[in-house]
């Protein structure tokens, strides 16, 4: 992916070494980082946890290794073990060699010579990873002076400014004196990267560097990492749970499960020719933002094993649909994937691709993962056949506004401005459909949900639930009638359940409240447990005895208890692991079809939205900028913001990822306080930036109204899709070149022409 490498033959030769295919003890001389048989054990109250079991890899200069796995797979522990940052109680064995120097066993002090110098790391949570009491300048300079104590003050300062500029922080000189809390999450992650690359490291370890960020910011930060890698020539170990993030970056992938690498190989091998059921399941479990045809997701049942007991067989066996007797006897070793792959699109069987599965040879690109995992058929709702306009409206919002006054002053409060969290929102949801609201955090999507859930008659705008208007909701009876139609599923399945309630109590609360009799409640609870796929005999357990996915199922069961028409889903799967996510999404899909439910969903993951929704609204600073049928909006986005948002989503498809053109928005979401008078999006708009001044004037002074696609200014081709509205004056304007990025492809890629990116900037 880096521009350094040009000849593809050379590439292949190099890759031979990269994925870690060598006999223990042998390390290629040119590897900058060699890990051999890395094992990490922790002592816990319950016994010894074997968190990492036998990780091997070699990393060549300038290359990127992606380590993919779910939480608890040992990927973060691996990175900390390499950095020597595990607590002293952890037992680390094996070998970690940096440029041939053994790092394991070094004292904390000896290790400090390498940490932050040749070996640097970027952590997951930028909000807590910087010391709150020191300026960012101080923290960057500290990274320099630790290794270069003789560097002059001017020199360190100049370097810090240079670094901040490199990671894209505007006016870096002034920002040196800023404290971390004055920066947004994305900016702080940039500072973290600046600290990591301060001493031009040979190896940069990035542990979920974008997980805590919005997609648009994620795209920016990934771009910064890319630049940083180019500038320093560092090899990168990229740790992530998101198969999309590494698809575009990594040269090689290592998939980890239960502390062990279960499949390694080049990025092409892994994505196009997975040979381990777990990898196949992971790839099938992620919805694709670019897939219009709906295929149900591959659920991987069960939960990862407990690492306290050493496995007698394959650790994935309990969850594997292909499990056989052979799988239960002895843990399979990583073996080279033999034979030329049938698909013919990967590399020849050169031995770099390894998988730990006894059935490797019977798997390949042509095996349908949906069949193997028995993915349920796409459920069909009885409403799907009914035209939308003929279906009953279950929720309608008319011009809903929520403005917060921003006050300042001590004794006498002055109003210095208004935060328009939600600004004139109108939409409706019909029976049996899923309507989603997407946007960056801070765009007002959560406030919208709150306005609906906390309806009252004095709010600004009308909320009609099941035919009853909030304006008429003055008596308790109307209110409870409205409440019955509307239930909610929360983002954090742990926080949404009272830790002191058993599942039975959780589920009986809404039923008791509805005045149901005790025996009926018991019967209903058993029904609900089965409906959401939980064992009914678990009703006496407490929430903390369930896994995250199971807890979310309890939350869904609670929402369904009183048979609502509409369920509000606030980021229902964002707190779950990928494999668990698929199960919950499939469940939601099934329930919608079987029970004729409508959903109002808020999500930042557009792939999930695309998969589950019928209609979608894109929000920006409290306003809907584009709304319509999900396929229309995603396949033919009209608003520049929608286009940018869609382009920011990494797709788990390396060829597409490497060739597509991305729109990288600049800066963060502006504070709603500074909302401009004209188009809200003008400050970050790639079209606006490329417009001539005369046309820019229009964007700055007039607020673009939501207009249906098909009005005169829109091309004729789009008129076939009537359910799409957007708010932009110049949807066909050219995109600013600075915000467009195309990475040079370094993969021999015959099919890339067929997978041309959908975002068309310049004609």
């Amino acid at each position, binding site marked *: 992916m880096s521009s350094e490498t040009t000849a593809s033959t050379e590439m292949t030769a190099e890759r031979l070494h990269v994925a870690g295919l060598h006999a223990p003890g042998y390390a290629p001389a040119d590897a900058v980082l060699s890990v051999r048989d890395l094992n990490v054990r922790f002592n816990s109250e319950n016994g010894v946890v074997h968190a990492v079991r036998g990780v091997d890899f070699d990393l060549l200069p300038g290359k990127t290794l992606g380590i993919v796995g779910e939480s608890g797979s040992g990927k973060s522990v691996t990175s900390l073990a390499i950095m020597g940052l595990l607590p002293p109680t952890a037992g680390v064995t094996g070998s970690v060699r940096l440029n041939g120097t053994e790092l394991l066993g070094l004292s*904390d*002090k000896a290790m400090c*010579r390498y*940490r932050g*110098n040749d070996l640097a790391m970027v*952590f997951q949570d930028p909000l807590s*990873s910087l*010391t709150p*009491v020191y*300026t960012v300048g101080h923290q960057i300079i500290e990274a320099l002076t630790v290794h270069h104590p003789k560097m002059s003050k001017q020199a360190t300062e100049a370097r810090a400014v240079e670094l901040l500029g490199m990671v894209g922080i505007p006016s870096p000189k002034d920002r040196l004196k800023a404290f971390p809390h004055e920066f947004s999450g994305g900016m702080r992650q940039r500072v973290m990267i600046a600290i990591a690359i301060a001493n031009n490291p040979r190896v940069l370890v990035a542990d979920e560097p974008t997980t805590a960020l919005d997609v648009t910011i994620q795209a920016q930060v990934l771009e910064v990492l890319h630049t940083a890698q180019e500038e320093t020539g560092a090899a990168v170990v990229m740790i992530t749970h998101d198969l999309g993030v590494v698809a575009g970056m990594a040269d090689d992938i290592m998939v980890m499960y239960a502390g062990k690498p279960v499949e390694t190989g080049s990025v092409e091998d892994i994505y196009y020719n997975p040979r381990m059921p777990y990898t196949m399941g992971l790839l099938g479990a992620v919805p694709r933002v670019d897939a219009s045809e709906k295929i149900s997701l591959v659920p991987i049942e069960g939960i990862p094993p407990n690492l306290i007991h050493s496995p007698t067989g394959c650790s994935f066996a309990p969850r594997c649909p292909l499990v056989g007797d052979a799988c239960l006897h002895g843990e399979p070793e990583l073996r080279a994937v033999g034979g030329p792959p049938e698909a013919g699109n990967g590399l020849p069987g050169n031995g770099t691709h390894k998988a730990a599965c006894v059935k490797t040879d019977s798997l390949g690109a042509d095996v349908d993962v949906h069949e193997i995992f028995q993915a349920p058929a796409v459920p069909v709702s009885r409403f799907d056949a009914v035209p939308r306009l003929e279906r009953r409206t279950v929720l309608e919002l008319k011009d809903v506004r929520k403005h917060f006054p921003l006050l300042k002053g001590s004794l006498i409060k002055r109003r210095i401005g208004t935060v328009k969290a939600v600004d004139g929102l109108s939409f409706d949801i019909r029976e049996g459909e899923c309507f989603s609201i997407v946007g960056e955090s801070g765009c007002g999507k959560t406030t919208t949900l709150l306005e609906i859930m906390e309806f009252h008659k004095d709010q600004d705008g009308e909320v009609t639930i099941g035919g009853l208007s909030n304006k008429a909701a003055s008596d308790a009876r109307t209110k409870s009638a409205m409440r019955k139609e509307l239930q909610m599923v929360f983002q954090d399945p742990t926080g949404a359940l009272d830790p002191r309630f058993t599942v039975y109590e959780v589920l009986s609360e809404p039923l008791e409240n509805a005045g149901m009799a005790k025996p009926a409640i018991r019967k209903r609870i058993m029904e609900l447990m089965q409906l959401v796929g939980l064992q009914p005999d678990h009703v006496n357990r407490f929430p903390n005895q369930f896994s995250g996915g199971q807890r979310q199922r309890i939350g869904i069961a609670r929402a369904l208890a009183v048979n609502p028409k509409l369920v509000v889903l606030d980021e229902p799967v964002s707190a779950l692991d990928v494999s668990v996510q698929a199960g919950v999404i499939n469940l939601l899909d099934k329930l919608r079809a079987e029970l004729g439910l409508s959903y109002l969903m808020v999500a930042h993951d557009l792939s999930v939205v695309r998969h589950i929704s019928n209609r979608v609204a894109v929000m920006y600073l409290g306003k809907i900028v584009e709304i319509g049928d999900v396929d229309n909006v995603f396949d033919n986005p009209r608003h520049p913001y929608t286009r940018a948002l869609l382009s920011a989503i990494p797709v788990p498809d390396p060829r597409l990822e490497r060739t597509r053109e991305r729109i990288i928005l600049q800066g963060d979401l502006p504070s709603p306080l500074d909302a401009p008078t004209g188009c809200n999006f003008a400050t970050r708009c790639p079209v606006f930036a490329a417009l001539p001044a005369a046309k820019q004037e229009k964007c700055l002074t007039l607020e673009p109204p939501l207009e249906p696609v098909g009005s005169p200014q829109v091309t004729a081709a789009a008129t076939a899709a009537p359910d799409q509205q957007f708010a932009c004056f110049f949807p066909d304007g050219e995109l600013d070149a600075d915000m467009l990025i195309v990475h040079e492809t370094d993969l021999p890629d015959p099919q890339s022409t067929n997978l041309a990116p959908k975002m068309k900037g310049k004609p």
Partner: protein
Amino acid sequence: MFRYLAKRAATYLLMIFLTTTAGYFLAVSTLQPALLEQERMPRPTPEQVTNSFRLKGLDPTLSPWERYLDWLTAVVTRWDWGRSPNGAFINAEFGDRVWISTRLFLASIVLTLIIGVALGVYTAARQYKFQDRVITSYSYLVYIVPAPIAYFLVQLGAINVNESIGERIFFVTGISTPGLEGNAWVQFVDMLAHYTVPTLAITLVGWGTYQIAQRQYLLDNVNADFVRTARAKGLTRNQAITRHALRVSFIPVAQSIAFTIPAIFAGGFFAEKIFAWPGVGSWSIDAIALQDVNAATATLAYGSVIFAIGAILADFATTLVDPRVRVQ
């Protein structure tokens, strides 16, 4: 930041006013010096008593509200806090006693904070080791001993030391030897001999709270993400903790300073009583015994002011160590 502090100061001023007012009414309605006068020999007539009190501004025939207004006017316009039933002027008495109290507590407060925080850091660095267990157990033990009894025990110990040595090294009561003559050195040694025991006692009782708090806050931060970042830069674990975690763990400790100063002052009543230092604390108790409305109110006002000073100092300290507060 100064505006913020000024605003806080204004709030506290209002609170001081309210607590003092409440205190005045409480005192005026419960304290009746006239009854004490009745016990004097020869027994004065009620008229004589009333006359004598009227002259001192303590007219018992007036309603509490009228007396309050008179008192408030005097305080606000002339900074005159009134007189005691025996005729003494509060302002004059007050100055001496504040000085004595301050002398008694200043060293203890500083020592309490320094030792408490230092031991907190020390024990946090040696979590669950022998030193940590001993020191932390001590701090918990202090928690279940009432302050005056602890002072008394220290006093007892000092007496034992004196007796076993057979020479009077420590003075367990009083602020100085009355009528002591000699050069500056002699005076200084005498002062030290008087200071040691009370200061030691107050400090021994005081630092436990800070040790536990500082230990806990530091331990909370030792494994913080930013410490890991600092280590990833190439700092050793100890460097990362001392340079990063320590400063952050000071923030809540700085905030709790607000409660040390008044707490020590409150404990000061006991200390002054037990070590026989005639400071504000013991005066306030005497004032009540002597049914002295004005003195009681003045000491109460003093207590409130001390609290407010502590709170503002805490705000100030917090803004010093925590940049996040500075913006507000």
